[in-house]
């Protein structure tokens, strides 16, 4: 049995990781390597981890921990049809373990630095000083709301609204029923909408 295959390199610490683009035929390579499977997942997983931690270093640590957990499970990874949700599920367990280890309270973002998040909001605020003030105000209200979410609610909201996972997939990732996911979404949204009034004259656009 023959199959086109591109080598995955074991990266050295100095050179950045890259793939050998040569189309090489290796008759015994029925399976993809860990690097082939995991490399394309790193950036999307980092984004998800960042949503949960809102801190680049913590997000990287989480993805790193995940990589160390699954590096020995190449066969399993090859057999999985949808790799991303599988990885997100394991990463979610690591995230929850981390929270428990730190004995942190259910608030996911209690240590959140407002300015970190505010940076991301000023994407296209233009130069209108009134708009800037209004965005700042709206942003701070939303951040205050975000800090009131329990981590389960926050994870559910981000997975559903931003990552586009279905209720069923989220239920599987969080190991709960779909009903629980629905109520987490409902309560999470309700908290996020608190104090949002029309006085801000602004909209923050989703995709």
């Amino acid at each position, binding site marked *: 049995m023959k199959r086109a295959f591109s080598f995955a390199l074991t990266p050295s610490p100095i050179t950045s990781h890259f793939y050998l683009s040569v189309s090489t035929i290796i008759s015994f390579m029925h399976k993809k390597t860990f690097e082939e499977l995991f490399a394309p997942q790193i950036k999307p997983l980092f984004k998800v981890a960042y949503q949960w931690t809102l801190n680049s270093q913590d997000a990287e640590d989480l993805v790193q921990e995940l990589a160390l957990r699954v590096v020995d499970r190449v066969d399993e990874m090859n057999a999985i049809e949808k790799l991303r949700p599988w990885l997100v599920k394991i990463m979610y367990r690591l995230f929850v373990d981390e929270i428990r280890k730190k004995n942190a309270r259910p608030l996911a973002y209690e240590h959140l630095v407002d300015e970190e998040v505010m940076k991301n909001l000023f994407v296209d605020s*233009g130069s209108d000083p009134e708009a800037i003030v209004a965005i700042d105000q709206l942003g701070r209200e939303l951040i205050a709301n975000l800090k009131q979410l329990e981590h389960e609610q926050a994870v559910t909201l981000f997975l559903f609204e931003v990552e586009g996972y279905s209720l069923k997939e989220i239920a599987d990732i969080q190991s709960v029923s779909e009903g629980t996911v629905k109520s987490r979404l409902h309560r999470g949204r309700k908290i996020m909408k608190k104090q949002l009034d029309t006085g801000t004259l602004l909209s923050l656009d989703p995709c």
Partner: protein
Amino acid sequence: MNCTEFHQQLEFCEKGSVNSLSKAQAEHMRECELCEAYWQKHVVCGFLHAVSSVDAPAGLEARILAKASQKVSENSSQSRKVSWLAGAVAASLVLFSSVWLIDLFRPESPASEQMAQVKVSLPINQVSILPVMIESPSALPQVTISVNLGPSLSIEHYNGLRKLSWQAALNEGANIINLPVLVASEKGDKVIVTVESGDEMKTYEFLVEGQKNSSKNVNSINDSTI
């Protein structure tokens, strides 16, 4: 402004960006609860997108993959040590006694020793496919194969990189690796291939010589459908 217009104005948007809401929209919202609820949902969703719009730090993938592969190599060297101390050398020889690495074009010349020397001639300054066969007495679901090339050899597209390592599953019987090799000088160089399976490891070595005229024994890189 009606509800449809209100919705339409909100739809024109980029992922996670922040726009001003028009006066007309604001006025409409004060009178229309449905549109206000719609706007709130919109704002929350936009906020969540904006919050997530962070760039991955430089070198993220390299760092993560490097540590993961380091763990793999630490694990395999640890277990090898244990295996050695436990006197499993015999098992090692049994496992690999008929794993041979040979030149594909001389299949009758197996290298049956731990360290085998096979000589291959490849044309200089031209990428050639170097076929390597590994014969395994049984299916091995997880082996690590490493290839080390001497300084006057390189793998095509690697810009001088001469060390590769990857995981593979070996079938029972013949397994073929086709390496796209470039030889820089007539003197040629060594290719060292290491096959690791669980506790065991076996090293093979062969010599690649540079040849001025192209050989019948090699395939052009363009012929990648061998």
